[in-house]
Structure formats: structure tokens, C-alpha cells
């Protein structure tokens, strides 16, 4: 076990992103965004296409380097840690394309993710959360249905017993029935394992159901954040931010300065 596993709890947060900008080829896609997640909490990251959700996740998982700003995992900066290092340190990203190993069986996909030392028990645990996987253990991942693949992707992320589980576009290409089955699994995981869960979800209503807090991105900035209970009551706000209509958001929140929902003033950042 590395030193990083020693609790250096400064803020009580698993993940603390401070004024991070990230993008590709020198072009920032997300600008100065800040977000935090506590253990056992489910946080949704919402926003229209191109808002910068996936880029944010990629930066958190170490797939791309942030241009400015700070990402810290349990109080320690993640700067300089590669994706595989971060994965071992407890960050598990389920990417949009699921990144399964199609030529390996379901069981092999799970096994390959359970690093050294960790044995079958974490595999067993995963199968308790996702009992549907039991019947397809011997099949190649490429032969599974879309829903089964998504379950396997989540399951594979869980095998490493992550502190932070990040799921990108869970419902992409899945039938509503399957989505309704999968989202509660995330709640289950957060509650029982005290894992922090960050979900990106196009299906806003569903995301609001499972998450306790949400951040809404538009044009690479956080335009709205707060408890889902509060956000749910202001549908027009979300609609406005989805259409990228920042003026409307400002008008609705009545605040051109903070760009934030006034519910949580303590997390507001400088403009």
C-alpha cells in the first residue's frame, strides 16, 4: 500500500477539483471549473452535448492533463499521475464506450481488473451488486447485450474497490428498462461501500433521482450547481443551461456575478 492511501483528509472530500481548465491541443474545452464529491455521495454532472462533461471526467481520471488548476484525490494532488496510477489509487472511470475487452470473457474482464493481491472476494462482491452478470461469466464480453456490457463495465470498475467511481453516459444506447435497473445499482454501491460516485447522464430526470447534488455545465463552465431537490424545482433553469442560454440562467438565478445557484453560496468561486 502506498503512502497515498494514508488518509490525509483535509476537506473530507474524496475529490476536490479547483478552477481546473482542460482541453485538447492547447484549446480549453472546460474552463476554471470546480467541483467536490464526498464519500458515499452521488453527484451528477449534467449539460448539453459539447458542454465539456467527458473532458472533465478524462482530466479527473488522468487521461488528459489539466492545463491549469488543481485536482486532488483525498487531499493529494493528482498532478503527474498517469491514468493507470490513478486507477490503482482508487479512481475508476467507466468511459462512454465502456472500454471493455471484447475478446476476454466476462470473468476474465473482472479478473484482469482485480490487481495483485485482491482475490476472488471482490469479484464475489461485484456479482452481489450485479447478479445478472453471473449467467454470462463464461461468455466473451463482445457477445453480451448492451445492458450486460454496461453492467460488466460498472462491475469491472468496482472490482478494484475504487474510492471514486465515475460513470460516463450510463444510459447511452440502452433501453429505459435497463437504465432504470442500473441507476439504483449506483445508489446501492454508494450506500454500501461508501464509494463516491460521479455520473454523467443525458437523462436528466433519472440523474436527478439518484444523485444528491448536481453540477450543470454549459460552454465549458459550471453554470449551475446545487442539491438535486432544489434543482428539480427549477426546471426552467436547467432547460436554459442545456440550451446554453447563459443570459437566461443569469436572469433566472438573479445573479450575474456568481454564475451559481444561490443555494450553496459557500462553494461559489470567484468569477
Amino acid at each position, binding site marked *: 500500500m502506498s503512502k497515498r492511501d494514508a488518509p490525509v483528509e483535509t476537506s473530507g472530500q474524496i475529490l476536490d477539483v479547483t478552477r481546473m481548465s482542460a482541453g485538447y491541443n492547447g484549446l480549453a474545452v472546460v474552463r476554471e471549473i470546480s467541483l467536490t464529491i464526498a464519500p458515499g455521495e452521488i453527484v451528477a454532472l449534467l449539460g448539453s452535448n459539447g458542454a465539456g462533461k467527458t473532458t472533465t471526467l478524462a482530466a479527473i481520471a488522468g487521461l488528459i492533463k489539466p492545463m491549469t488548476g488543481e485536482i486532488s484525490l483525498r487531499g493529494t494532488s493528482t498532478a503527474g499521475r498517469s*491514468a493507470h496510477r490513478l486507477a490503482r489509487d482508487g479512481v475508476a472511470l467507466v468511459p462512454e464506450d465502456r*472500454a471493455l*475487452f471484447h*475478446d476476454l470473457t466476462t470473468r476474465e474482464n473482472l479478473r*484482469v481488473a482485480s490487481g495483485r493481491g485482491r482475490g476472488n472476494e471482490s469479484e464475489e462482491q461485484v456479482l452481489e451488486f450485479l447478479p445478472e452478470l453471473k449467467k454470462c461469466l463464461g461468455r466473451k464480453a463482445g457477445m453480451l447485450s448492451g445492458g450486460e456490457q454496461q453492467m460488466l463495465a460498472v462491475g469491472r470498475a468496482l472490482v478494484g474497490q475504487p474510492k471514486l467511481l465515475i460513470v460516463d453516459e450510463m444510459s447511452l444506447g440502452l433501453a429505459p428498462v435497463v437504465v432504470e435497473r442500473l441507476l439504483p445499482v449506483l445508489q446501492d454501491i454508494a450506500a454500501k461501500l461508501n464509494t463516491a460516485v460521479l455520473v454523467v447522464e443525458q437523462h436528466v430526470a433519472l440523474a436527478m433521482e439518484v444523485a444528491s447534488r448536481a453540477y450543470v455545465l454549459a460552454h465549458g463552465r459550471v453554470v449551475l450547481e446545487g442539491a438535486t431537490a432544489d434543482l428539480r424545482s427549477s426546471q426552467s433553469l436547467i432547460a436554459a443551461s442545456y440550451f446554453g442560454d447563459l443570459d437566461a440562467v443569469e436572469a433566472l438565478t438573479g445573479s450575474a456575478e456568481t454564475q451559481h445557484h444561490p443555494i450553496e453560496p459557500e462553494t461559489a468561486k470567484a468569477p
Partner: protein
Amino acid sequence: MSAFLLFVLLGLGAGSVYALLGLGLVLKYRSTGVIDFAHGAIAMYSAYVFVNLRSTGVLELPWIVLPHAIPLTGGQPMDLAPALIITLVYGTVLGLLLFLGVYRPLLRAAPLTKVCASVGVMLYLEATAVLNFGTTSLATSPILPSDPIRLAGIAFPSDRVYLAGIVIVVAVVLLVVYRFTKFGLATRASAENETGAALIGISPTAIAGRNWVIASLLAAGSGILITPISSLDPTSYTLFVVPALGAALIGRFQSFGWTAGAGLALGIVQSELIKLQTVFTWLPQQGLSDGAPFVIILITMTLSARRLGARGDSGTWKNPKLGRPSRPLLTSIITFAVGVVILVALQGSLRAAFMSSIITMCICLSLVLLSGFVGQVSLAQMSFVGVGAFILSHLSGDLGIPFPFSLILGALLVVPLGILIGLPALRVRGVSLAVVTLAAAAAMDALVFSNVGFSGGLGGRSVPPPSIFGINLGISDGKVYPTITFGVMLLVIVVFIGYCVARLRTSATGRMMIAVRSNERAAAYVGIRVAPLKLFAFALSAFIAGIGGGLLAYQQGTVSSSSFAVFSSLTVLAITYVAGIGRIAGAVIAGLMFASDGLFVSFLDKVLHVGQYQMIVAGIALAITAIANPNGVASELAGEKGLALRFVRLRDRIFPQKPPVAGTLRAVNLAAAARHPVTPAVVPPVKEKEVAHG
């Protein structure tokens, strides 16, 4: 019957080496996506190290000039066991160093970049071995017990059986390790999806490094094991990689079992063909046993082609950057004028070197068209060149066909060959096409170029100098060598071809080619007939290569098959790629800077007296350029503030463009287009230009 059995058993020797090397190639490909053409060279160098330890106890290090021979035993021969262990460690360390220095920086590079780097490593190791050990073959005492075994009335050396046993054991061990251990799982996982592997905590680099070490160990081991069977010399050992690649290809660079089996089978087929030649005298007597396995590979791969196991993120076929020629006619005229000035300014050997550069440009242009525009890799390009050269020699020598017709007819006769070698491209693509065309080149080498009637044997065939209207265009006019007229003729032909290729790039056909290159399926969806287009590209490329061959024949006066050996195709692809295979300028740079007999290298030789170290320098330069310019030198030059941009500005300042008129928008630059409002009807050409710039 028993004689046939004997040859089967004898074939196990070479077959085991193909199999072991093939297994190493599979490991390397699966873990890093590198098809390591230097794999045989590592086996070769390890074999030399082993032989030297056994005979004099001297440890030979893989470099020159610096002290490289370390006496370990004071001149005494070393015992088998320590020599074996030292050599295996040596090969492993060598492989690891090459991985860290060359392949690790290229892990996420395009497959062709990796191929170029490995060709650089191969050239380096081979040239170093030639300098340090000479080219005379060495023989050594046996390692495995080789007392004859009697079976069914025949006696054969038992070491072949042991060798085959080793192969089977290694294959089974690899099979078990990769199927059942966590390391094997991790390798398979990271081969399939590198990002996915990183996301679950696997370091693809660490996995690749470990696999590379195992593969190098196998290479060193096979190098040692073959020494008693095949006499040791740098070139033929390095060439073992070709049948090994064939074996790996049959195993689709995935399956250990198939690769091992195919390696053994190839060895047996070769050996059996030697026997058959004595029975059936109508069989071709030269090169049959060398060539037939490649013909088999070619046919089986073409008929039963399935794609090579895709290699996750980094193994997807990244296309080299493309250029978009602007004002090709003007550029061609300027190029021609500059070329003539250089011809006049240079004298003697440097002028001859410039001519070699021009001819290399022609050959490289054939690759720019085929690999750059259409994305089809050909490792048989020098075979086209060679056939073109020999046909020209027959046409103008034996049949007396006069100059321009003999050259054009000769090149036209290469076209069917181009289409033939292009046929596999309809079924296989990417890296597997590279290996299939390499097999084709090896088959050509063994079966066609070794045919004395066609190629004139060792002495080669002479080519009468070209002349037109009684004017001698030959490279020598009795007093002067090389003549300016010959150089001008080269320039006229090659610049014209360059102009045509540039025009092709911007034509409708060129756009279709690039569509096919980007996505065959998508190209088919928009109504492009992919197969005929590919064959057309192969035909055209073969034609240009054939012209290059003809020019080469005129330059050399005598063509011999040694100029068109298998690895020369590899080298020519590597230099074109490194120079920038997506651009006409890439061919020019390849000819001027990288051709081993071209202007820059000859100049270096004159100034620095590189001489015998030329191949070593070339190998290192190739590897370094591949790492430093993964998109090709020409693309770097075409970037912002690059040389190419300055050239374009200078050209446009001296020869200003006509003011833009509606309808001639093609020649207008973007800034001008933005200043002048355009009607929607003429927008598409501008848009296309914009895309090409990106």
C-alpha cells in the same frame, strides 16, 4: 518414401527457428503493435555473441569504433553453459534497451512509424555485425546432441527433433501463460484496449516492456540454436525474419499454436521442395525452396484473409498527414529549373549522386501515390522497380525497341504485376497487407530475380544507353561522366511524374482515393467503387515504379538483381515515410536526404568520410527521424513557419497569382476567398481546401 521423410525431419531445423522467431514477433505485436523487422537481427547478433564466446571467450558489444570486444576468459573458449547464459542475458538486455530507446517513445505512434524505426534498428545491427564480424560464414560446434537416430530405415540428426520439441514446449508454455495467468490477461487486455487497461490500473508500457523482454529472450535463444544448422552470416540471419513473419501472419499475429505450427511447416515445405527438385526436373531449379513458402503465404492470406486482430487504440491504422499541392505547374517548372542549376553546378560523383536522388524520388513518388494517397502499404515496391529495369533491358537490348517507347512499354509491362500484388489488398489491409506484400517481394526475389534468363544471373544484364533523334541521352558520352543531358532527361521525366501525381491529388480521382484511405466502408457508402480504385492505384504505382526501374537501369548501365533484394523495398518505404509519404515534397526529401546513394549522404561521405559506416549512420538516422518526426519531415516543414511555407510565399511573391475571379476559386487562397463573397455554388472547392489544411 523414406527419403521424403528424411527431408521432412531435416526441415524441422529451419522450421524451428522460423517458429521461435515467429512466436517472438507475435509477442511483440500483441504487446506493442510493433511488427519488428529487426527481430531476426537480434537473433543474428546474439548468435555472433554466442559463437565468439564459445571460440575465444570474447564478449562482443553491439557498436563500432568504441571498444566493443571484452575478453572474458583470456582467449580461452568458454564452456557451453556460461556462454549460453551470458548470450541469453545479452539478447534480453539488448531487446530491453531497444524497447526503452526506440519503441517506447513510439508506443502510440502510427504502425508505419514503428515499422520505420524497426527498419532503422535492423539496418544498424546488420551493418554493425558486418563491420565487427565480417561477412564470411562461421560454423560452430553443436549445442544439442546430434547423434543420428534411426527410424524406419533412415538416419537423421537427432538435434532436429530436440529443436522441434523446444518449439512445442515454448509454444505450450506461452499458450498457458497467456491464457491463464494475470500477466497474460493483462497483456491481452491492454492489446485490445489500451485506455481500458489504463483505467483499471494496468500500465500498458510496463506490460509491453515485459513482453518485449520475453520476445528478445526467444530471439536470442533461436539465434543460438540455429548456429550449428545454418552457417552464420549477417544478412542471411537477418533475413530469417521474413519466413518468421510469414509464420506469424498465418497465426494472425495472435495465435501461438498456429504460429509455431506454421513455422515448422514452412521449414518442412522448404526442405521437401529441395527433394522434389531432384525428382521432378521440370520444376524451377533456382529459388524454388526459398520462394514457394511465400507463394503459399500469399495465396492463403489472400483467400482466407481475416483482419489482423485489431490492436486497441494505438493499433488502429493512423494515416500519415497529407499535403495539398498548390499551383503544381508553376512549382514543377521552378523545381525543374532549380534541378538543372544543381546539375550544372555539381560535378563528378556528386552529380551522379544527384541523379541517384532524382531516380529515388521517382520510386518514392510511386509510394506517395499508393501509401500516401490510398493508404495501401507495399513492401514490394523495389520488386516493381526491378522488374521494370530488367524488362527495359530485354526490350531495348534484345528487341531493339527505341528509347521513349522501351521505357514506357517496360513500365506498362510492370502494371499487371502491380495489379497482381494489389489483389491481396482487396482482402487485407493495414499491417497485414505490409507483411503480405513483403512475402510477395520475397517470392519475387527467389523465383523471378534468381532466374538467370530473366535477370542475367550474378553478372546482371546490360542496358544500352537511351538516345532520341540521334542525340545520345546516356549517362556517359565517352568523355564526360555523368552527362548533363542524362540528368536533364531524368529531371524532365521525374518532374513530369511529380506534376501528374500532384494533379491526381487534387482531381476527383484523388479525392476518391483519400476517401478510401480514410474509411473504405464510408467511401463505399457514398458510391465509390473501392476495389477498382485500389487496383488502379496499384497499377499506377507499379507504372511509376517501373519508370523508376528503367531510369535506374539507364543510370547503372548494368542491372543486377542484388539491387532489388527484399529489404531494399523496406528501406525505400521507410525513407519515404520518414520524409513524408503524404506529400510530393516527401518524395523529394527522401531522394535528396535519405537515399543511401543520394546527394546528402554522398556529400556527408565526401566531407566526413563516413564510408564504411554509412549503413550504421543511415540506420540510426532513420530510427531517430521516425521518433522525432512521426508525421514525416515534409509535414514538419509544411507546418507554421516551416520551410515549405516560406517557399510558397517566395514563389507567390515572384509569380503573383491573378486576382480572384468567380469560377477560378480553386487557385485562390482562403484569405482571398474570405475577402471576396462567394456564391454558394462555388463554395465546395474552398471548403475542401480548408479541410486539407487541417
